């Protein structure tokens, strides 16, 4: 039942996304491969931030430092790339991201202070760290990294940025999810005490989950660097957007339920809404209200559908 409900949610989101694509096409008949491509590129940092947040939420926590970790990773990579070239810089950055996540997770587990408090504190710590590494936007991205996310040459017709998100997230998440760690993450998220009594090392599981959050944040930071070509020490608006996409994507705040596919489709939905509002020339002071209203509307409508199907099943 749970599985059906979750898949139904993802299918519903996909349907909504396709409908919004059609609306875009109606507003702007020229919207085509180029438009899709810039949409996918714009979604790139949001998608990784959302994947990062989703893992933390699934394990029963929340990570408010996602955007700050992205900033640290973006400046780290930007500085390293000038010195040691692309591949080593990317490897080190991914390790740095994972390490930051593990630090967050370990602090949560060891101090027993609520996740929201620890990661809020770490938000400021990582924000300051990013400014220490690079005071003003600077550094550089290797050209091949910038080219990799542009165009659609890997699979004709599909934007590269989309493929990169799909492949990266799948390569990290699917093996983990199928392993013991994945089971432990979901078990810890559903009921920490029950999981602990069943023999799950909940502390280690949480720390590992935060490590994955850090790894995805590093991917987000790298995608920011690839997009702009410079490392930016000031965190962008990714924290709240990630929480919004996670909720819209069917992950329940509280943990144990949901996957990564739904939240990532939700990212694309929120991005295309932004595109539509720009194309339609909406008053910019109204657009955020519209975005928020649509989000609440979709989540409420979904909850209503779920409730009704439950009542019918009962």
């Amino acid at each position: 039942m749970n599985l059906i409900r979750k898949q139904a949610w993802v299918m519903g989101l996909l349907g909504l996304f396709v409908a919004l694509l059609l609306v875009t096409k109606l507003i702007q008949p020229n919207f085509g491969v180029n438009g899709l491509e810039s949409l996918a590129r714009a979604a790139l940092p949001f998608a990784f931030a959302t994947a990062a947040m989703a893992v933390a939420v699934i394990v029963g926590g929340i990570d408010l430092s996602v955007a700050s970790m992205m900033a640290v990773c973006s400046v780290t990579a930007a500085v390293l790339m000038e010195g040691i070239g692309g591949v080593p810089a990317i490897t080190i950055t991914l390790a740095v991201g994972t390490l930051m996540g593990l630090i967050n997770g370990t602090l949560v587990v060891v101090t027993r202070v609520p996740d929201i408090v620890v990661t809020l504190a770490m938000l400021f710590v990582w924000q300051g760290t990013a400014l220490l590494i690079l005071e003003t936007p600077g550094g550089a991205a290797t050209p091949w990294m910038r080219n990799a996310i542009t165009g659609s040459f890997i699979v004709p017709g599909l934007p590269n940025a989309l493929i990169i998100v799909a492949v990266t997230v799948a390569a990290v998440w699917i093996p983990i999810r199928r392993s013991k760690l994945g089971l432990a993450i979901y078990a810890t998220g559903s009921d920490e005490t029950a999981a602990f009594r069943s023999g799950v090392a909940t502390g280690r599981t949480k720390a590992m989950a935060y490590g994955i959050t850090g790894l995805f944040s590093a991917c987000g930071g790298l995608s920011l660097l690839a997009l702009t070509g410079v490392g930016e020490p000031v965190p962008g608006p990714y924290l709240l957007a990630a929480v919004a996409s996670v909720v819209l994507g069917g992950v329940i705040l509280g943990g144990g339920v949901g996957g990564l596919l739904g939240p990532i489709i939700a990212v694309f939905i929120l991005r295309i809404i932004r595109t539509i509002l720009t194309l339609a020339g909406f008053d910019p002071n109204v657009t955020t209200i519209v975005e928020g209203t649509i989000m609440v509307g979709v989540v409420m409508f979904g909850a209503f559908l779920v409730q009704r199907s439950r009542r019918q099943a009962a």
Partner: protein
Amino acid sequence: MTRFLTGAAALAMSVAFAPAAFAEAHGGYTIGVSNTVQGNGWREEMICAMRAQALVEGDVTDLIVAHRNTDSAGQLEDLNNLIEAGVDAIVLNPSGPDALNSALETAIDQGIVVVAVDAGVTADGAYILSNNQEEYAYLGARWLFEQIGGEGDVVYMRGIAGVSADTDRNNGFQRALEEYPDVEIVHEVFTGWQQDQGKQQMFDFLATGIPFDGVWTSGIDNVIVDAFLESGAPLVPVVGADNAGFVSQLLEVDGLEGAAVTNPGSVGGAGIALAVDILNGDAPEDRTVLVDPVLWENTTEEGRATIEAAQNPDLDPEWPVSTTIPGWTDYTLEQIIACDGPGQG
């Protein structure tokens, strides 16, 4: 439900976009605007100046404004959306000099005119119309150091770390500082160009009791004077921008010595005017146009007269009082305050 929404949206859009469809020939331009700081008086004046100027330019039929708080990646997204919307020109306040080049170069390749206002971009073929930020800081800092007798401690209240306008201003400030080796920075903070944050920072510093002789602000100015008055601290010379609230304080607050350096937000309107000129085939020879600031101080009769002339009670206290740029903007004061652009009814 979805079909209904799609249908309704299609209907609404076909009505809204009917005029744009005929915008191909001479005139009838659609201009896109991109800005990444919302809710700041200077930026709001810039947006209103853009709308007002687009309204009075006969050749502009539509203005699409992407105006929100975001980072460079978000501005890239907005710029790509504007390109998708088929605009003829983009006028933007860039979040950074290099970060936006991929979108700007795409736009220029497609024949879209790109004008950056307030700060520069490095994309080939882009036009830049900017206030001279380095000179802005240098003028104010030099006046302040002169005013405190060439020696003493100053509080240095900057904007946002890493933003190019802040970096340029810092260069100008440091240049002035080198000329006055006996002046020390006793406290340096980033206000984030937010009124509440800057005021709190001044309260915090006043509470420490560390003495200082002057304050240089990057435009968060009237709340700094308020902080002095509310905490009863003795006033020291303050340098700010030509924001309406600060300018009136320069005239009305007893014992306040200060100077306002002009930094017109109306440079946005000038950017629209420049974009239309270029679209009509009248491009300037130099791709970079700098608007130089001037300094208004209240310690001489002459200076007070200048300030009095510039003051305007109708303006929002956070707006710069220099609402027009002679030779560039054509709108009236009523039009910029109304803040209506073309295609908005």
